[in-house]
C-alpha cells in the first residue's frame, strides 16, 4: 500500500516532467514546476508519516516537507513569475527542438536510465530500482529541458527540476540523507536559485533580453 502510493506519486513526478517538456510558454513552466514540487512534497509527507508511525517518534523528513512546501511550492514559483513579468518577453517560440521530437528524446532518456539502473547488480530491492529509474529520468529530462530552451528562465526551471529529481532520489532510496546534509543541500540550492535570479536581471540589463542565444561573445 505504502510502496504503491510512493510508486504512483513518483511516476506522476516523471509524467509532470514530460508535461514540462510539452509546455510552450514561460508561465506554464512555472505552474508545472509548482505542481511537480507539490507531488514531491506529498511524497516527503508520506515518508515522514510512515517514519513516525513505525519508529513512534518525530521524523526529520517532516521538516523537509515543510521546507519544500514553503520554498518550492510557494516562494520560488512566486519569485519566478514576478521575474518573468519584469524582464523583456517577446520571443513566442522558446525552444530549439520542436516538441514532438523533444518528447521522443525524453522517452529515450527514460529508457537509458532504466537500462543503466538495471545493469547495477548491487541494487536488489525492486522498489528502490524503480525509484532510482524515475528520479534519474527526472534529472535527465531536466537537463534536456535546460539545453533545449532559449530563455534564462527556462534554464532556471530546468535546474530546479534537476534538483527535484535529486531530492526524489535521496528521499526514496535512502529514506532521507542525514538531516544537516539535507538542510545544506536545500540552502545551497536556494542560494543558487537566488543568484541565478540576480543574474537574469543582469543579463536583461546588459543584453536587453534574456535570450541565451545572445550570449555568444566568448568562443574558442
Amino acid at each position, binding site marked *: 500500500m505504502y510502496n504503491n502510493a510512493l510508486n504512483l506519486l513518483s511516476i506522476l513526478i516523471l509524467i509532470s516532467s514530460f508535461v514540462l517538456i510539452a509546455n510552450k510558454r514561460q508561465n506554464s513552466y512555472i505552474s508545472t514546476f509548482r505542481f511537480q514540487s507539490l507531488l514531491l512534497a506529498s511524497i516527503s509527507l508520506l515518508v515522514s508519516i510512515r517514519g513516525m508511525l513505525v519508529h513512534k517518534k518525530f521524523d526529520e523528513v517532516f521538516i523537509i516537507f515543510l521546507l519544500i512546501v514553503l520554498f518550492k511550492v510557494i516562494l520560488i514559483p512566486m519569485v519566478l513569475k514576478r521575474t518573468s513579468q519584469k524582464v523583456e518577453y517577446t520571443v513566442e517560440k522558446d525552444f530549439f527542438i520542436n516538441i514532438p521530437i523533444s518528447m521522443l528524446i525524453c522517452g529515450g532518456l527514460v529508457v537509458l536510465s532504466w537500462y543503466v539502473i538495471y*545493469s547495477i547488480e*548491487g541494487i536488489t530491492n525492486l522498489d528502490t530500482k524503480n525509484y532510482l529509474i524515475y528520479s534519474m529520468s527526472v534529472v535527465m529530462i531536466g537537463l534536456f529541458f535546460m539545453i533545449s530552451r532559449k530563455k534564462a528562465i527556462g534554464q532556471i526551471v530546468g*535546474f530546479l527540476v534537476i534538483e527535484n529529481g535529486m531530492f526524489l532520489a535521496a528521499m526514496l532510496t535512502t529514506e532521507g540523507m542525514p538531516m544537516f546534509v539535507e538542510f545544506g*543541500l536545500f540552502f*545551497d540550492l536556494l542560494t543558487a536559485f537566488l543568484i541565478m535570479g540576480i543574474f537574469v536581471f543582469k543579463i536583461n540589463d*546588459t543584453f536587453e533580453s534574456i535570450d541565451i542565444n545572445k550570449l555568444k561573445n*566568448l568562443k*574558442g
Partner: protein
Amino acid sequence: MIFAFLAIPVIAGGLVWITKNKTVIHLTNLIGALLILISSIAALIEINKFKAVTSTGIFKDLFYIDSLSGYILLITTLAFFLVSLFSISYFGEELKRNVITLKKLKLYYSLSNAFVLAMILALITQNMGVMWIAIEATTLASAFLVGFYNNKRSIEAAWKYLIICSVGIAFAMLGIILLYYSSTITQVGNKISGLNWNFLLQNASSLDPSILKIAFIFILIGFGTKVGFSPMHTWLPDAHSQAPSPVSALLSGVLLNTAIYGIIRVLSIVNTCLGNNNYTGNLLLLLGILSIATAAMFVLVQQDYKRILAYSSIEHMGIIALGLGICTPVSIFAAMYHTFNHAMTKSMLFLATGNVYLKYHTKKIAGIRGLIKTMPVTGIVFVLGVFAITGMPPFGIFMSEFSTVVGAIQSKKYIIAMLLLLFLAVIFAGFVKQISKMFYGNNPNSEIEKGELDFISSSVLIVLLCIIIFVGIYIPAPLKSLMDACTEIVLGGI
C-alpha cells in the same frame, strides 16, 4: 583549531564592511589570510604528531583533517595569502583609476573570503554530503567574482560558469546518494557516518562493487566538471579569462585542486573496494588524455593571453588525472607534487597578467609588445613562468611531469607516455609561438610609460618565482614527507 578555519574568513569578510578607510580594509583581509595560513601550518604540525586533526563535541564525525586534506589546505591558504597581498596593489590601482568603487572593493573581499571559506570547508570535512555542499558553494561564491566587472563578456562567462557547474555537480550528488545507499544496505552503523569517507574507506570491502562503479562515474563527471576535464571544460576558459586577475589565480590555482580532491577521496574508496585500479584508472586516463589533447588544440589558436593560461590549466588537471589514473606510488607522488607546482606557477602567471592588463588595458596578445622593456620584473617573471608552465627544467613542473612519464613507462603504459609527451611538445610550441611575441620588440603605444605597478605586486611575483624554482631543485624534507603521506592515503592507507 577547526573553528579557526571557519571563523577567520567569516570575521575578515564581515569586518571589511565596518570601515571606510581603504588601507584598513586591505589590512583586515590580509591579516585574515595570514591567520588562516598560520592555522593551516599549525594543523599540519598537529597532523605530523597525531596523524589527523579531529573535532570534538557534536561535530565529532563531521571534521577530519589528514595529510592529504592538510596538504591541499596548505596550498589553498598559501595561494590565498599571496593573492590577498597582490590584491592590495591590483585593486588599489583600479580604485585610483575609478574602475571600481570602494563598495565594490569591500564586496570583492567579502566574496573572496566566502569563496575561500567554502573551499576550506570542502577540505576539512569528512562527510561527502557536506563536501558536496561546500563545492557547490564555491561556485555560488565565485559567480559574482567572475562577473565582477558587470560587462557583457563577464556576465556571459559568469552565467555559463554558474549553470554548467551547478548542473554538472548535480550528477555528483546522484553519485553520493548511491554511495550512501551502498553503505546503508550493507552496514548497520549510525546514519551520519554512512556518508563519511573514512567510514566508507574502512568498510570498502563490504560495499557493493557494482553500485560503487556507477557512483564513481557520476562523481567523476560531477566534480570533473568543476575540475575542468574535457569535454566538460567549456566554462573554464571563459570564467578564467573574464574574472579579475587575482580571482583567476584563485580559480585556477586553488579551486581546481579542491574539486580534484573530492574525486581522490572517492577514488581511493572505489579502488579499495574493487581491489585494483583498472576501472577507475582507465576512466581517469581517458579523461586526462582528452583534456590534454583539447588544451593542446586550443592553445595553438588563442589570441587572448588569459585564455591560453586557462587552457593550460585544463592541460595540467589532465596531467594530474593521468598521475592518479596510473596509480603507482611514483605517479601519485608526481600528481601530488604537480598539484603544488601548478598552483604556484599558475597563480604567478595569472597575477603577472594582472600587471600586464593594468598597464596595457588589453587581453589580446596582438596588442602587447616589448613587455620586458616596459615592465622589467613582470616581463621576466612572465617569460620564466611560461617556461615553467610548459615544463622546462629547472622548474617544479618539469620534475613532476617527468615523474608522471616515468610512472607511465614503469607501469608499461607506453601509449599514454607517448601521447603525453607529444601533446606536451605541441603545447610548448603553441605557447612559444603565441606568447613570445609579447615580450620583445618595442612598445607600439608610446602613451604607456615604463615601470612596474608598485613594489608589492612585484615582490609577490618574485616570491612565487623563488618558490617554484626552489621546489624544482630541491624538495624540502617536511614537504616531501607530507607528499609521501598523501601518496599513501591515495593508495588506500589511512
